[in-house]
């Protein structure tokens, strides 16, 4: 039987209105016993109709008036027994109180233990994440070490310039891979609206080529940046430039500079 279609037919609304035939009523009653969703539907319809019809009433009378009219003939009068101390009953009650208290205590314990387990579980997961993080860090560090240890690498220390003597950086240049690894931990954070820009320089004549800006400098953890460099660089410099970078370096903002040692090969 298609319950949904049956509900949609509107027959249950008529059932609540009370204007179906006796056979139909009996049939629906049987269906209600078999299908809880039909019963639920009837209850909701009835509830809506009860509320709607109640809303029409301008007042409502309490039950008190009715009480006298139906009489109290059916009320059974129970004779009170004379009081006597019933020790059995008292001790029974006492035992049940003790039992109840015990149960309550056990339940309490149980819920406390549950909580502890939850907390420990949480801690476990936290520690697992930490281990995971550490593993990743380690892998990254090993990777870095491999890069620096590469026999083809040229290390270029960049010293602080002018007013910025406390700044320093280091460039590891892998010529065969046309890549430099810039270790810029010795640079301060770039102020708002400014960005670090890396330059490759040839000295005679002096001509700078931008290797790009380090946009994620402030958020990077290890301050080591991998930058492509296919130039025949003779020196590297880092300047602080307005956001977006500049075409030529602003020399007053040249923080570090380092010359590449004469070709070792």
């Amino acid at each position, binding site marked *: 039987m298609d319950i949904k279609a049956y509900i949609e037919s509107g027959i249950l609304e008529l059932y609540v209105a009370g204007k179906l035939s006796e056979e139909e009523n009996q049939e629906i009653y049987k269906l209600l016993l078999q299908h809880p969703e039909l019963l639920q539907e009837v209850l909701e319809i009835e509830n809506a109709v009860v509320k709607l*019809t109640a809303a029409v009433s301008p007042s409502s009378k309490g039950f008190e008036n009715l009480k006298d009219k139906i009489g109290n003939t059916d009320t059974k009068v129970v004779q009170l027994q004379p009081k006597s101390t019933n020790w059995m009953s008292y001790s029974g009650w006492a035992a049940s109180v003790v039992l109840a208290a015990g149960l309550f205590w056990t339940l309490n314990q149980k819920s406390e233990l549950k909580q502890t387990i939850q907390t420990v579980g949480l801690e476990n997961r936290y520690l697992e994440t930490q281990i995971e993080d550490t593993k990743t860090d380690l892998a990254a560090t090993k990777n870095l070490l491999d890069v620096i240890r590469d026999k083809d690498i040229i290390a270029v220390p960049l010293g602080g310039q002018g007013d910025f003597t406390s700044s320093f950086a280091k460039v590891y240049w892998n010529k065969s891979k046309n890549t430099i690894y810039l270790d810029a931990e010795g640079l301060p954070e770039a102020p708002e609206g400014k960005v670090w820009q890396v330059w490759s320089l040839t000295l005679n004549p002096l001509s700078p080529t931008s290797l790009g800006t380090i946009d994620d400098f402030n958020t990077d953890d290890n301050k080591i940046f991998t930058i492509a460099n296919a130039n025949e660089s003779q020196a590297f410099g880092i300047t602080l430039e307005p956001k977006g970078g500049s075409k030529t370096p602003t020399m007053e903002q040249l923080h570090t500079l380092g010359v590449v040692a004469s070709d070792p090969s």
Partner: protein
Amino acid sequence: MELELLVKQFQNKNHIAFEKLYEMYSKSIHGVVYNIVKDAAIADEIMQDVFIKAWHKSDTYSSKKGRFFTWILNIARNAAIDKTRSKSFKQKKQNLSTDYFVDIIASHDNLDNSTDAIGIKKFVTELGEKCKAVIELLYFKGFTQKEASEELQMPIGTIKTRNRNCIQQLRDMVL
């Protein structure tokens, strides 16, 4: 089910069960009767008579025949219609207002600000004319599907589906 149990206790002449059922349905019964007789005092009287009658004839109710609410609703409608046909009533009330239940609800100053009351008022003001007529006839006046279809000059099947849609709107408002 709780309601079924309550009705059984009521049939066993349990006063508390009776009082509970009274609390659940007396206002609705009063509303239906009032909509027919249009007089609060007379409606009070009939409503009480209806419940007393239900109490004394409780053994004639069976859940196989329909809902308890529907049963008592039937008793109430019949009692109210009987009243309007009585001589005394006809003399007293020369011309009954032709207000529908919607007009009565709309005319109530909000007696209680329950969400249901507000929802129902909103419901009746937004209700389409045909919904008003269908609900009035089927629930308040106790028309059969056939009688309603003749009165409203609509096919029988349309009455059934339209009524479902109308009640659905009501349910959306009050449940």
